[in-house]
């Protein structure tokens, strides 16, 4: 009989961390990062080309100022800022970060506004990244379909799956 010794068992590699809406995860040990069901939401994967530290945030709305509710990962501006800060806190350097982004579709936008929420989300993500001089090296934005994402720190690839389309590797 296995004796319970209070130690948690080591997970088998590669570990997989799931990121929900308005959530983020960072990893220094090459865990795969996944998020699903992006409609107008945007997934932002950041990767430190030097240390290999990776992070993924799933943002829902463009600007935190519009709705102060203490959930920074919900918004494109504060979500990206938070992800960068959390990655720096475990050893990443902002100078060597690269971004891959996906999502921001226009599906089911009933608003009468000029720009859909998806477009505004993607635009805000790009603006915030650019204020840190982080290059967006790949993007799959817009369209009228949903996406699910898997980021692989071992390859630096962002795998984008959609319901009715071919899987893409960015």
């Amino acid at each position, binding site marked *: 009989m*296995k004796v319970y010794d209070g130690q948690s068992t080591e997970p088998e590699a590669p570990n997989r961390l799931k990121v929900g809406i308005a959530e983020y995860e960072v990893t220094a040990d090459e865990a795969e990062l996944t998020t*699903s*069901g992006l*409609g107008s939401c945007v997934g932002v994967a950041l990767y430190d080309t030097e240390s290999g530290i990776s992070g993924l945030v799933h943002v829902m709305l463009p600007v935190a100022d*519009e*709705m102060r509710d203490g959930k920074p990962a919900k918004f494109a501006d504060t979500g990206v800022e938070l992800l960068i800060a959390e990655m720096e806190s475990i050893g990443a350097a902002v100078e060597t970060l690269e971004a891959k982004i996906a999502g921001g579709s226009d599906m089911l936008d009933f608003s009468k506004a000029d720009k859909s929420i998806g477009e505004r989300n993607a635009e805000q993500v790009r603006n915030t990244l650019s204020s840190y001089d982080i290059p967006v090296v790949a993007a799959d934005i817009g369209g009228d379909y949903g996406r699910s994402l898997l980021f692989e720190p071992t390859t630096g690839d962002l795998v984008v799956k959609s*319901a009715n389309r071919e899987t893409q590797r960015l």
Partner: protein
Amino acid sequence: MKVDVQSLDTFNQLAHEGAQAATDAMAQMTGIDTHVEVTRIMLVERAALGEELADHSFVGIQFGFEGALTGETVLVFEQDQSAAIAETLLGPDANTRMAQSSIKEVGNIMMSGFLDGWADFLTATIEHDPPTYIEGKGTAILPEMKAATDQVFVFRSTIEWGGEDVSFYIYMLPEYEPLAALMAEHSLEAENAIPVEKLAAFNEMTREGARQAAANVELMSGIETTAEVSQISFAPIEAIPKQFSDDIYIGTVVEFTGAPSGFLLVLFDEPSAITVAEALMPVTMESGELTSQHKAAIEELGNIITSGFTDGWANVLQQSIDHTPPRVVHDMGQAIIDPLAAQLGQFQRHAFLIDSKMMTEELAFQCEITALPNEQELRTALSQLDPDRTTETQADVEDIF
């Protein structure tokens, strides 16, 4: 008695944190890494409780609690998961008795954490009985509710295990009156509060809307259709898309305007969509694939269901509810609801989600009707709602076609 959005939020968060404390306790004990996907507070018809358990086999623990809150709580694992938990704790040679006792132990530690959180928040004592090991199929595993009302408040957390596509559930079933009283006590925004009985009346009215929609489907297709479930739940806006799976759905979405405004989704899983569409078509289809003809039939069906549903509401509220022409969607469930939640999320932090299901005995078909109303407008509509009118939803079918 009244509840306000703030106290619904507080209680929802409390249940969510309780579930997190419970899963942390489990991770520490077993090394099994779990994640609380979503917690929601639901007002649901007693008979419809636990429909998400389907006919799967579950094991778990149950115990009663009393004090500041009184009721029953259960933690249930799917049978296969319980074997894995027992194996993690006891090694591969564990026998049934040992497995049962390990489930009981894990469950006890988890649920003590869950209830302690509540007691701390309420600065009151909640005593609980020793846990009992339970096993059963589907809803039969849930305790009988000793409620005087047809509707019960339930806190339900869905917990995901290590990225696998398996879940287990914590249900907390407090007795209605003490919970409603407690929520009223913790109410901070008296002017925005909703009388609890109106929330229940609204649920009733939604069920009538769903029945009307089912009647329309029956009339159009000749397939006997029933509205199965109606529940109103409340969650932070970012938790709304999580109520849907990643599975592919096909259906229609409209924006409705009136009091309240919002979005109405009529969604079928793919096999159901094919079955229903073919039942509506004059000619038999050769392929089992979803074609543009199927989609056209689904669009028509979505339109009829939407009309039936909004007419049901309009009759009760005694005002007109208009809706946009249906837009056909065919995508991942979460991705469909995500932009709708985001549109509401620009103005509100939480959302009420109203679900009904329709099904038939005759065909393997299931349809989910989901309304996502503007929160502020829903509150206004509820405050003006006359509970006596909730059964007057017999829309004239002639008006619909």
